[in-house]
């Protein structure tokens, strides 16, 4: 406090020094967050031998694309990639669609049993979805659906991810002003009309947030595929990353890391391109909840 009263020049230099210290701190603090990513992207281009060496020496042959070629040539990785893409493409719109409709009803329409049913869906959100794995597995095996994608997709839509999306949409619809709805009714719209023509168009940011969460959850889903899928060609990406091993358990790290880059790339790129919206919508989900 004292320095502020002093002459202008020392203050500046003190502030400048303070700045440098702060910058140094920021750099140090950010290391554990981005060094692993940097390391991943660099190592994906190394041979299996060079990976164990110094981080920025590539060894003979320099940058290698062969890891990426081999991932697609020797393993059904393209097929597994397609599996993950189509499961996300199918489950995310359904999850968000069902949740938007249900969330609106939970937020705005009074119907008998509403609170009880909403509480059940809160429970579905809170309870670790792994807990219900045994009965779900019994159900799906009796239906002969093990080793198909059906359980994986349905559990995305209706289990924890679905419940969370319903919750998110309900919280969003509660914040929309009721006057809008009344104005719509004056214009002769019925409830579905109000929902479709007025509420939904206003909900694009919330729908986008919900979709981001749903995509991330679907892309990351490990537990259900682990239980339901055992054929190589049915696997999704998170499981597929663990299959670049020799049969006795030795990991081919160069292939594993190259494949990890391919799995991370679309999400990281999407994030970098739209990071402001990304971060803001995720932050909003926290402060408005």
């Amino acid at each position, binding site marked *: 406090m004292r320095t502020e009263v002093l002459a202008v020049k020392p203050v500046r230099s003190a502030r400048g020094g303070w700045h440098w210290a702060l910058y140094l701190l920021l750099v140090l603090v950010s290391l554990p967050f981005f060094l692993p990513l940097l390391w991943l992207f660099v190592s994906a281009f190394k041979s*299996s*031998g060079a990976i*164990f060496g110094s981080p920025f020496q590539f060894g003979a042959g320099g940058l290698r694309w062969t890891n990426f070629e081999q991932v697609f040539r020797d393993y059904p990785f393209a097929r597994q990639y397609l599996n993950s893409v*189509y499961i996300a493409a*199918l489950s995310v*719109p*359904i999850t968000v*669609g*069902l949740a938007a*409709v249900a969330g609106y009803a939970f937020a705005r329409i009074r119907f008998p049993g509403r609170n009880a049913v909403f509480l059940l869906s809160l429970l579905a959100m809170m309870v670790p979805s792994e807990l219900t794995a045994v009965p779900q*597995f019994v159900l*799906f*095996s*009796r239906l*002969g*659906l*093990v*080793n*198909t*994608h*059906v359980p994986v*997709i*349905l559990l995305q839509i209706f289990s924890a991810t679905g419940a969370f999306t319903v919750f998110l949409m309900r919280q969003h619809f509660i914040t929309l002003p009721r006057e809008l709805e009344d104005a719509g009714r004056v214009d002769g719209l019925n409830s579905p009309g109000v929902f479709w023509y007025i509420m939904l168009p206003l909900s694009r940011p919330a729908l986008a947030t919900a979709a981001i969460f749903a995509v991330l959850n679907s892309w990351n889903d490990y537990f259900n595929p682990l*239980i339901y899928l*055992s*054929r*190589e060609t049915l696997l999704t990406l998170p499981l597929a990353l663990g*299959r670049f*091993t*020799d*049969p*006795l*358990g*030795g*990991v081919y*790290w160069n292939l594993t890391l190259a494949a990890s880059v391919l799995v991370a790339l679309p999400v990281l790129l999407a994030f970098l391109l739209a990071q402001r919206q990304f971060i803001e919508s995720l932050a909003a989900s926290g402060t408005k909840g």
Partner: protein
Amino acid sequence: MNRSVFAIGLCVLLAVPVASAQKVNLRFSTWAGGEGLTLLQQLAQEYNAQTPNVGVTVEVTPFADYASKVAVQLASGSGPDVGWLAEQSVPSFLKSGSLKDLSALTGDPAFNLADFPVSALSLWKQGKGVYGVPFSNSPQVLFYNKDLFKQAGVSTPLQQYAKGGWDYAAFRSSAKTVKDRTGAFGARIMRVDTKAWNSGTLGVLWSNGGNVYDSNLKCAINSPASVRAFQLMYDMTFGDGSVPRPGDQTTFQGGRLGMYIDNVSFSAQLKDAAFKWGVAPLPKGTTGRVTQLGQAGYVVFARSSRPNEAQAFLKFLASPAVMARTAKFFPPPRKSVLTSKTYLGSNPAIPAAELKTALVNQLGSARVFKTSDNFLRANDLFASGIERLYQPGANIGNVLNDICKGVDGL
């Protein structure tokens, strides 16, 4: 709403593989990899060519998870029809009634069951039934990296064996010299995954008078001789630093390991190795040169909906002609194949003389790991105990006593 119902219906359609009407499709489950897997896929295609109404899909699960993955599939009614099974899983699969009795096939004189040594079949028999046919009768061998030994100026295990001095003291000092002079690890005894701790470890235990189970299948891993054998492996890990610690991902095929104990089938992973390698017998211990005889067999799962087609495919795989081809990676139990002139030359990567010394000559003293029918559970206790054992400052005797307390308490 209708749209979403439609979409779910669509996803059901997309996800369920459409089976073609008349053709029988068999699922064949294996943990093979590399060239071994390529061979199996080729055999599946050939079988389809010769019996056009039967197609075979080869499905792979890594070895460490193989038994539990297959068992879960069987329990859910989505199991494979035919598959591999390793010796350690046979008792538990027999107990749960998961395997089909093959005596109709093996009783067929054309199949010539007598071609298999009695010792190779004992594991697969129960009562009058035969529940599997071994395709691999594989004493573990020592792979060594010739380049590293040359660089370290140590004579290779095979040379030391020829001179008669290849014992565990020589093994330890060779490993340490390789480590000290090249910076690479001298030896890996266990596989990377501690669940597969028994591979490699058993040879060291048995050759030095130790054991995992006694003859009544009671835990014996805490016997004084077992403790001494573990002490040796522990000292090589933490004293000499010549053996990688658990969690270390260094593999032999990466070229930074002097020696590695595994089955001959591991050579399927060495096609692209950037170094010269060879195979040698395991070292000799205080009670002999006992190596683990890895056994794996073909089985038909009891829940297969196509038991006859499955059994016919198994017959094809276990026939002398096909076994002569799989013999390249999997030492054949059929005596007719093992003693044939072509066998020793079957794997071009391993010279006939080496294969004879390291493998064929060791068959007499090799031993199968006999396990109890609760091995899935017991193995969990063994593996977690082994993880406690390989820690700096561990009390080996106490850890092994704890393991036995747990295993015998199951």
